C-alpha cells in the first residue's frame, strides 16, 4: 500500500465518517437516557420533599393518628406498625431465602438449580395484589385482618428478592477458595460456614436490606390484609396494625388538604427510610466485592 493510499484511509470521510456519526449518536442518546433516569428520581424525591416537609414535625413523628378526618395526629403508630410488620416478614423471608440460595448454589444439581431460579423469577414477577389476595384467602377471610397476615404477604414478596440476590452473591465467591478448603480436608458444610458465607457476608446483607427496602413501601397486600386498625400505637401482630403506606393511601383519599399534606410528609419519611437502606446496602456490597477480589 502506498503512502498516499494509507493516508487517505485516515481521513474522516465515507464509511469512517458514517461510523463516527453513529458512534456520537449512540453516545449522546444513552447519556440523555441516563440523565432522564436521574431526573425522574430527583423530581419524585424533590416533589415529595417540597410538599411534605411542611407537615413534618416532632409532633407528627411522635403522635398516633387521630380519628378518621382528624388531622391533628401524627404517624407514630404507622411507623411502629411498619417496623413490626416488616421485621416479622424479614425474620420469615431472610432465613428461608438464604437457605434456598445456599441449596441452589452449593448443593443442588445444575438442572434443579436452574429450575428453582426460574421459579423464583416467576414469584418475583407475581403482582403484589395477587400475593395480597392469596394471603387474604389464607389468613384473613373468615377471621380478621392482622399484622401477621401482612407480614406473611410481605415475606412472600421478599423471598425471591432475598434468594436471587443471595444466589448472585454466592456464585461470586471464587471457586478457588472452596477448592482450597476441600483440599485441606475441610468438609462441605464447614467450608460453607467458615469460608463461603463469611466471604459473601456483605453481599448477603445487601440483598436482605434491599428486600426490606422494597417491601417497606408495599401497599396493595396490606390493604387486603392489614388496613382496618384501631386507635393508638398498637404492637400486637395478632391484630391489624397501622403502617406508613396505608396511612399515605388513606390520607390521600381524604378530601381534606391537611390530610394530603400529611400523606406527603409520611411519603417523605418512607422515601428517606428506603434511600438510607439502599445507601447502607451499597456500602456493604462494595466491601464484600473487595473481599471477593471482584
Amino acid at each position: 500500500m502506498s503512502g498516499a493510499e494509507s493516508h487517505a484511509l485516515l481521513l474522516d470521510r465515507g464509511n469512517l465518517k458514517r461510523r463516527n456519526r453513529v458512534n456520537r449518536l449512540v453516545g449522546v442518546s444513552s447519556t440523555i437516557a441516563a440523565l432522564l433516569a436521574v431526573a425522574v428520581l430527583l423530581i419524585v424525591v424533590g416533589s415529595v420533599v417540597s410538599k411534605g416537609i411542611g407537615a413534618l414535625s416532632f409532633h407528627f413523628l411522635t403522635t398516633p393518628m387521630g380519628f378518621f378526618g382528624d388531622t391533628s395526629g401524627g404517624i407514630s403508630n404507622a411507623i411502629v406498625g411498619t417496623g413490626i410488620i416488616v421485621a416479622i416478614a424479614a425474620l420469615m423471608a431472610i432465613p428461608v431465602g438464604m437457605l434456598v440460595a445456599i441449596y441452589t448454589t452449593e448443593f443442588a444439581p445444575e438442572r434443579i438449580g436452574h429450575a428453582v431460579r426460574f421459579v423464583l423469577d416467576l414469584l418475583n414477577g407475581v403482582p403484589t395484589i395477587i400475593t395480597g389476595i392469596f394471603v387474604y384467602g389464607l389468613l384473613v377471610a373468615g377471621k380478621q385482618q392482622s399484622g401477621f397476615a401482612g407480614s406473611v404477604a410481605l415475606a412472600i414478596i421478599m423471598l425471591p428478592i432475598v434468594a436471587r440476590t443471595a444466589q448472585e452473591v454466592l456464585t461470586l465467591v471464587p471457586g478457588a477458595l472452596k477448592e482450597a478448603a476441600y483440599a485441606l480436608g475441610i468438609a462441605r458444610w464447614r467450608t460453607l460456614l467458615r469460608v463461603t458465607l463469611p466471604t459473601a457476608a456483605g453481599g448477603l446483607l445487601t440483598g436482605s436490606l434491599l428486600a426490606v427496602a422494597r417491601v417497606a413501601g408495599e401497599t396493595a397486600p396490606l390493604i387486603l390484609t392489614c388496613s382496618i386498625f384501631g386507635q393508638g400505637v398498637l404492637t400486637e401482630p395478632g391484630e391489624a396494625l397501622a403502617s406508613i403506606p396505608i396511612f399515605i393511601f388513606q390520607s390521600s383519599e381524604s378530601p381534606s388538604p391537611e390530610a394530603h399534606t400529611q400523606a406527603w410528609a409520611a411519603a417523605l419519611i418512607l422515601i428517606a427510610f428506603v434511600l438510607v437502606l439502599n445507601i447502607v446496602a451499597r456500602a456493604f456490597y462494595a466491601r464484600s466485592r473487595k473481599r471477593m477480589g471482584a
Partner: protein
Amino acid sequence: MDSRDQSESPTVTEQNPEPQASPDAGAGFPHPAISIAGESAARPAKRSREIGNVELQGLNAYYGSNHAVRGVSLAFDSARVTAIIGPSGCGKSTMVRCINRMHEEIAGARSEGKVLLDGLDLYDPRIDIVAVRRSVGMVFQKPNPFPTMSVIDNVTAGLRLTGASRGELEERGHQALVGAGLWDEVKDRLKAPGVGLSGGQQQRLCIARALAVDPEVLLMDEPCSALDPMATLRIEELIGELKERVTIVIVTHNMQQAARVADTTVFMLGGELIEVGATDKVFTNPDDERTEQYVTGKFG
C-alpha cells in the same frame, strides 16, 4: 517461547540418587506419623522415610466423555521432588488432582485405576476423603488465602476442625510458618488479613496452610505461574528444603523450573505418560523422541 527454551541449559547439579525401592508396607490408615507439623522442620535431613510413597496404577481420568489421563502407572518416591511437565491440556494437572481426590469435585469428572499411598488404595470405599486430603496436601496455581481470615487463621484453617486447643493451634501455626519460610516476614502481622501479603508471601502462606496439617505428600499445581521471578526463586528454595519431610509432586509449565527443583521428571503428552526419569537425563538425553522435541522447545 522458542528463544527461551533454546537458551535453556539444564543446570542440574543436584545429586540424583537411585530411586530406592518403596517399602510396600501396607501401613494402616491414617498414617502413624501424624505429628506436630513443625517437629519435622527440625528433623535431620534425609531421614529414611517409609511413608509418603505414592503409586499410580493404571490411572484413567475423565471429564464427561473427555479422556484426560490415559492409563498412567507411576511411582512418586518419598523425600524426592518429582516434576510433571508437558504441554497445556496433556492431563498433568488432572493426574495430580487424582492423588488427593480433588478431581472428583468437578461435576461430571470420574477416574479409574488405583492410587496407592504407602500401599493403601486411596479410592477404597472405606477410605475417608478428609483423611486423604490431610495426608496429601495441595498448593494451587493462584495463591488463594481465605479473604476473611488473618494470616494465622489461614495457616490453622485446616487444623481447627480437629478441635485442637488454642495453644496447640498457635504452636503448629508457628511451626508451619517457619517451615514455609514465612515466619520472619509475618510474625508482626499474624492478625492482619492474609490477603494483605504480597503474591509470593500469599503463596508461601498457602504452603504453610497445607503443611500445618502435616501431610505426607504435597501436590503443587504450577505454584509459581502467578508469581514474579524473585518470589518464584523463594518458592523453589523452599521446595528444596521441604523435600526432606514431604514427597513433592510439582506440575510446571516452566522447564527451567523443573530442571532446577526436581529429582525426577515426568513428561506427559495427550493424557499419556511418555517418559519418566532422573531430571538431568530427561532434559539432556531423553529416551523418547517426543520428550526431546518438547524439552528443546520444538513444540508445546
